[in-house]
């Protein structure tokens, strides 16, 4: 029997009281990660009103209902301003589902196991790098599952974007202008691989000869024709303040050339509103940003589960809303009991077009569930809301080793000032050659070397 004596005001008072004391202790009724470690789920860490949308809205919106312009007022406090605006005035709708309480459904299985087993072993060294007690690179999982600072939350996010040792995402991007017209349509692949903090792929936890690197990451484009073969390879040093090395294959040049890498606020391709810096809300080395600070806590509506669409052969998502009914992904959200809101500033980028970013982390698994960036005048600039899911629905599932695949499914990036929207989704495959998935053996040779770049670069 779950405790019902804590009313809606209790949690608000609790979050405010913690904030006034300058402490972060996740969980309301009990320390969240103590509960998760002991019970594998988080019900006893939160009161009812944070575990059910019905309870939170006092029955005005029931789990399974759709949030739309007519009822969005009841959950206004659970949304960033841009999502609220899109629902109220642009026809955006959100389906709702019940809150996920099982910890093992909130991240890749091995990542969670490593998080639990390595809990308490991480620290920052004098350079600001996350290291083990004996000063070695991190060994796997979330180094700060019970975060006390914004920096710890961002450190975990920057250390492992996709939470797999290696991942490949076949993706499609559509850019929708303010009139609702899809102006740009791109398709390509994104690969990332960690030579450290490995929990699935051997050797573990380090690929010894690349122990000085944090990740290999590449992105390439297959469509449209003009950009087919455009590909970039980033090699991240482990040092959290050093910029990655960037190699690119531009079809016109027909060869791989090294590119400058400190400009990270540039659209990768025409029409898109996403920067390299925006990747996973932590696209830059950790210490090239600064002034990390927690600015808020509270419940939030986010797409954490049920976001995979196995009904479509390639997992594509439906769209709705906007002037032409094509502006927003069909999205299912759940009530996140506790989101931690962190702000950070691009201290190493004096001429960045943004002055700060505000990022919402889910306190249960510390994944990023929302981001708003602000321009130099401090006005909201762009907003990002993504969706994650375990790739499992009924008897349909995609396996990652012994467990179902966990990953992101789609992202909406909204340019608040221009009204443009960039939609990004993970698809099953592109051209029967590039398949989404995690921990593939051949990812390094296929996507993450200069030789691979030449191959991806077309002929």
């Amino acid at each position, binding site marked *: 029997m779950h405790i019902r004596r804590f009313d809606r005001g209790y949690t608000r008072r609790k979050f405010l009281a913690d904030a006034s004391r300058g402490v972060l202790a996740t969980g309301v009724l009990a320390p969240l990660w103590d509960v998760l470690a002991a019970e594998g789920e988080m019900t006893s860490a939160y009161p009812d009103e944070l575990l059910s949308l019905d309870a939170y809205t006092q029955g005005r919106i029931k789990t399974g209902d759709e949030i739309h312009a007519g009822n969005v007022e009841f959950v206004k406090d659970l949304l960033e301003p841009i999502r609220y605006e899109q629902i109220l005035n642009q026809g955006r709708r959100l389906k709702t589902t019940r809150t996920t309480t099982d910890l093992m459904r909130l991240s890749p299985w091995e990542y969670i196991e490593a998080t639990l087993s390595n809990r308490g072993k991480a620290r920052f060294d004098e350079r600001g790098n996350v290291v083990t007690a004996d000063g070695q690179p991190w060994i796997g999982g979330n180094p700060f599952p019970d975060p006390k600072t914004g920096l710890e939350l961002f450190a975990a996010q920057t250390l492992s974007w996709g939470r797999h040792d290696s991942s490949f995402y076949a993706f499609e991007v559509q850019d929708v202008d303010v009139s609702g017209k899809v102006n740009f349509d791109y398709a390509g692949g994104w690969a990332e691989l960690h030579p450290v903090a490995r929990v699935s792929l051997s050797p573990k936890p380090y690929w010894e000869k690349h122990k000085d690197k944090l990740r290999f990451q590449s992105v390439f484009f297959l469509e449209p024709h003009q950009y087919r073969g455009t590909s970039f390879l980033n090699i991240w*040093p482990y040092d959290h303040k050093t910029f990655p090395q960037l190699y690119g294959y531009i079809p016109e*040049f027909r060869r791989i050339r090294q590119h400058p890498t400190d400009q990270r*606020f*540039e*659209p990768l391709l*025409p*029409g*898109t509103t996403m920067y390299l810096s925006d990747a996973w809300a932590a696209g830059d080395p950790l210490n090239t940003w600064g002034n990390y600070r927690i600015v808020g806590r509270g419940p939030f509506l986010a797409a954490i589960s049920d976001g995979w669409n196995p009904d479509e052969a390639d997992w594509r998502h439906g769209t709705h809303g906007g002037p032409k009914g094509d502006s927003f992904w069909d999205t299912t959200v759940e009530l996140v009991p506790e989101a931690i809101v962190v702000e950070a500033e691009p201290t190493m980028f*004096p001429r960045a077009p943004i002055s700060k970013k505000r990022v919402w982390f889910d306190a249960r698994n510390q994944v990023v569930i929302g981001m708003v960036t602000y321009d130099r005048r401090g006005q909201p600039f762009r907003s990002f809301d993504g969706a994650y899911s375990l790739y499992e629905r009924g008897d349909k599932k995609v396996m990652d080793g012994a467990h179902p695949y966990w990953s992101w499914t789609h992202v909406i990036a909204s340019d608040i000032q221009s009204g443009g929207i960039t939609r990004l989704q993970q698809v099953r495959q592109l051209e*029967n050659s590039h398949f989404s998935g995690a921990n593939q053996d051949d990812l390094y040779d296929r996507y993450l070397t200069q030789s691979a770049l030449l191959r991806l670069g077309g002929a």
Partner: protein
Amino acid sequence: MRANMHRACVCFFGVATVMSGAAWGQAKGSLFGIDYATSGYLRTDIAINTNDDPNPYNQFGDPFNQVTVTRTPGNPGLPVDGLPILAPILREGLPFSVPLGVLTDEIQRPQKTVTNLFNYNVLRWEQQLELRFSSALRFVGQLRGIYNLREYDDDFDARDFRNDQGMIEGGVPELYHGKPNHYDYRVDGDDHPQMFEITGRDYFVDFPALLLEYSKGPVTVRAGNQRIAWGQALFFRVMDKVDALDLRRHLILDRALEEYSDERVPSLGLRVTSQVASTVVADAFVKKFQPSVLPNPNTPYNVIPTQFTVHDMYAEGGYDDEVNYGLRLKGDYGYWGWQAMAIRRFNDAGVFRWTETGVDKDLPNDNLLGTILNTYCATVLNAGTGCGPLLAQTAFEVAPTPVSVVSADEWFWYAADVRLGGISALNAAIDEFPAAQQILARSVGDDFERAHRELSAFFQASGGLRGHIARDYYQEDVFGLGASYVTETDEPGSFFNQIIFNLEVAYTPDRAFTPLNLSQRPLRSDETEIAFVAEKYHRFTSGFPATYLVFQAMHKTESDLFGRHLSGYGGEAVKGRNTEKAIASGVDGGATYVAFAFLQPWPAYIWELSAAVLADVRGGVLVQPGLKWKPSGAFTVEGFYNYIDGTTWNDNPNDSTLSTADFMNEFTMRFTYQF
């Protein structure tokens, strides 16, 4: 074999066209278990000429058209074999030393000058087809089709100039005997030297890529028709020695930031690339040798004076059976990197020399000198009705006045302009062709006036001569080394952070160049080429995306950007009576070029402003501002202007490499629809 390959090429073209036509645009799927993906674009390119002066290398742009020049012949050499005592004087000292004033005449090239509004006006289609047989094996085919929408020099036709001297007879008929031929690539003895293309006077279809790719682990193997580029330097081809350039379409006047994207000549070959260590990539190739393709006579960007007939010896010289091969290693270690290469190749630029015309045509008998020489050939040398059989064994063809060189001054002007030696070329054309000596031509040492009189004599006697030159290719070894460094500063946003420096050096021992005298023996010298590149991507304001900036410099010790030996520089020629100043003096200190380019996108990259500047330190600039608009994924509009000046801070255009392209000022618009 070659014919079979060409038939196979045509067959594939048909299949690909049908497939692409059926798909018409971007399509992907699976057919008979093979996955396919195809995409492409249509583009119109329109280049509007903004120059007052037309192309001087074409008939309608010859600077001597309707310019009156005076021809005063000299006394010819004499057949003095029987007079050994007098021979040295008569053969070497006396000939053409006495002006025959009584024979002085004035001549105008009876040719109009035409300035075209459009240099380039084409419809272009590119389609790519990929077939994937397995995760390791795929086929890539690229089809490129171009149709010339508008004639250039459309009322020029060599056949119109037929007269008593006949018409142009030597050379490949498709190139020299009719209207301007924009796209046919012909060499002596082979109508299809590039097996993967189908061309006509106004259309061009080829397969820039037609290959199978197999990859396993870190190794990738590509077999088939393909292009390869090496080196970090853009535009300056120090390490980029694998492929030749095809200059038939828009010469090198496309957007500078596209580099040689449309110009690289594909060729049949095998390429193996392997990540041999985590920091080192090895890249090796063996490719069939394909030379650079020069624009055809009387086409917009032709750079060989049309009074020459070129005999490309690619096929007859057996070069079409030759292969190039090479290896490159490239290592990257964070801030530092290096590369090294070695290539054995046939230099695609080729080497030109005088060659026999094979054209048996007597001198016209409508002038005194012609009549005398014909009579001499017929009666003394028993050559038939005149000098035709002997002229066939020389480098000169008697041709109608409008399509030939008709004066010594024109000869010297062009010699200086194309960086050849006006006198030495005359001497070599005589000394190395005994038949020329039989018809009383004599080399004249370095005596400009005698050379002028001798040329005047033979131009008067012939009514006009066309020079025949052969293009040969020589094998060479190129060794290259390069190093790169990326700066890193602690100051956030510093301009000096993340500048990428690259230094590339290539050394070619005993390289063959076109000799100034067009002798049968190439000019040989060791050449060193050095390129320095500094690239930066810098955000100047928070309101605009970062600006891409690149500075480059190149130094070559022996030749210019186009491969012409520097000893041919420095001739000061005028469009009138020339003097010995017209003779190339050469320049010391090598050739040095600097280039700067930037690319400034607007937010969201819908607009892009770019500019590129290339300067020859001896004078001359190419400035190319451009603007690109991409309103949607399907449409792109581009406009760019090419301003070229060969005398920016030098008085003599023949001191600057860029004067060769001085006439190419033009504004280009492109409209692309992508499907």
